[in-house]
């Protein structure tokens, strides 16, 4: 009998062409987005030659050699350097003073000016690079001068500052992997959303719930059949999304970014086993919430909000890249994010982790379906509230 309810709901859903097509938009969008973001990153990461117009390059040939050796393309200076920077034609212009050679030879500070416009955000990166090169040149020369006088260079640098830049493309790419669990979870929830609404709030809005409950069939049978239909729709969309990511990962420029990311058939199977419980539980919760809604539209509003919730653990783990811990396992969404990221990093996931995820999710699902069964005895749920 459960099978008969399931069959009816699936046929009904599959004929709702717009909702079926709509539910598969996300699985296509997720992997494409990942591909696009990686493309952007690898563009950002590659060191393009830095163009730097220099005024008076003839006064400091050694400095020019150093800059060119460091990947700077030294260009002849424009006629009006300040205007050129102000108009954004050059990120910065280096001006070497005519007294440079003379003062340098005398062991005094040789004047150089860097013309920049701090208000131009797009030039920041280039300006900082030039500054770092100049400071580096000055420090190494200074150190040489001190050593020539028998003094340790450390005397002149009481602090040793080492800057560690976390915004390297590698780190960003590793964070981007959090997109994978996020989209898998969204797929598992959004995939069944329309079925969840259609079989509960929709059934009442059409007025067919009353007729359905006039059959000599236990409420539990109806609830289980509808829940199975919702779960199957969820799992179908989640599975397609997972296959999409498997395909996409092959095309990602991972090695260029020095990353390891595993998503072969075995890893995919582990991921599926971690995501499936969320699809089952999510179907139950969505049906329960939709049953409270007064109309199809109202149910959609509630569920769209509900389906944003898994974003929270994804964000949390993106900024706090902790390992998945045992305490996360009974918490839906958090458990999924942790497990998926672990698997993709190439770490092994113990079977009992998956067992705990499955067990807890099924327990939550049973609670939802039990509540739903009781709700279907209440007349304000059957006939709707004004």
């Amino acid at each position, binding site marked *: 009998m459960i099978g008969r*309810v399931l069959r009816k709901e699936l046929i*009904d859903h599959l004929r709702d062409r717009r909702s079926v097509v709509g539910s598969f938009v996300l699985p296509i969008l997720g992997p494409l987005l990942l591909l696009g973001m990686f493309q952007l990153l690898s563009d950002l990461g590659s060191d393009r030659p830095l163009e730097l117009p220099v005024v008076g390059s003839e006064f400091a040939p050694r400095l020019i050699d150093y800059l060119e050796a460091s990947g700077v393309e030294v260009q002849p200076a424009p006629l009006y350097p300040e205007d050129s920077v102000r108009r954004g034609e050059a990120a910065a212009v280096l001006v070497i003073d005519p007294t440079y050679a003379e003062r340098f030879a005398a062991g005094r500070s040789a004047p150089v000016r860097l013309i920049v416009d701090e208000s131009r955000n797009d030039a920041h990166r280039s300006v900082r690079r030039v500054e770092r090169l100049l400071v580096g040149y000055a420090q190494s020369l200074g150190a040489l001068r001190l050593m020539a006088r028998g003094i340790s260079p450390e005397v002149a640098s009481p602090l040793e500052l080492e800057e560690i830049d976390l915004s390297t493309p590698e780190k960003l790419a590793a964070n981007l992997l959090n997109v994978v669990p996020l989209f898998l979870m969204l797929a598992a929830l959004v995939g069944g959303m329309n079925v969840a609404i259609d079989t509960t709030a929709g059934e009442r809005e*059409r*007025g067919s719930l009353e*007729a359905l409950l*006039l059959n*000599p069939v236990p409420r539990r049978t109806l609830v289980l059949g509808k829940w199975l239909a919702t779960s199957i729709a969820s799992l179908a969309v989640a599975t397609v999304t997972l296959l999409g990511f498997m395909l996409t990962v092959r095309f990602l420029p991972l090695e260029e970014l020095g990353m390891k990311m595993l998503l072969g058939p075995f890893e995919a199977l582990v991921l599926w086993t971690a995501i499936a419980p969320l699809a089952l539980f999510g179907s139950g919760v969505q049906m329960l919430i939709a049953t409270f809604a007064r109309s199809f539209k109202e149910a959609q509003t509630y569920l769209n909000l509900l389906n944003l919730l898994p974003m929270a653990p994804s964000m949390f783990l993106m900024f706090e890249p902790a390992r998945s811990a045992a305490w996360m396992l009974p918490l839906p969404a958090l458990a999924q994010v942790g497990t998926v990221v672990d698997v993709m990093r190439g770490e092994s996931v113990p079977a009992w982790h998956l067992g705990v995820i499955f067990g807890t999710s099924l327990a939550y699902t049973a609670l939802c379906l039990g509540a739903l069964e009781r709700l279907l005895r209440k*007349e304000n749920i059957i006939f709707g509230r004004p």
Partner: protein
Amino acid sequence: MIAIEGLSKRYGAVRAVNGVSFRADDGKVTGLLGPNGAGKTTTLRMLSTLVRPDAGRALVDGIDVTRQPHQALARLGVLPDGRGLYPRLTAREHLEYFGALHGLAPAALRARIDHLVQLLDMAGIVDRRVAGFSQGERTKVAIARALVHDPRNVVLDEATNGLDVMSTRAMRTVIRELAAQGSCILFSSHVMQEVSELCDRIVVFAAGRVVADGTPDALRTATGESNLEEAFMKIIGSGVGLA
């Protein structure tokens, strides 16, 4: 046979149904007549197990619907107030689904559907999706759905509401035919012509109570009015809500 014994239901301070009792016999069409809001639909919902009564009981062929809801529902065919159909399913798929939920075997179900298609003159629409159906066609599907398990007791809530003249006449023919075959028909309406035309016995509702119960002739005699319309006006006290 349907027996209602002292049914009561209150919503807050409103006594929607207040100690209602009546019987509907096999082979007869029993009409529930009363203005909108008189308690007819709530009574029928209690009979069909969807609303739990505060007091009293409803019996279908002697089975208490509160104690044994599934046994009662198996003997009851209900055309509910909400006619809701599934727009993406065909008329035949509706009957197949509800027939299966009533536990009919596939072969018996096929034969029953053929019979209903003939009875309700649905051959032209049975394999079309319900989405584009007219009001009359939708009512036909809903009635066929209520009759799919060949119930001995049939409850029709405002069956002719929204139907055109032809469909209404066809519906009356079907109801009479079912009663002639020995079914117990309970037919509620706020349209007096409908009830007086069709029913062997009339139960009149007003403000949650049964205010009169008898054959049309008996009601005329009791009120001393030769005209049934005048008789009802006298019984209910006013014609508000009746059509």
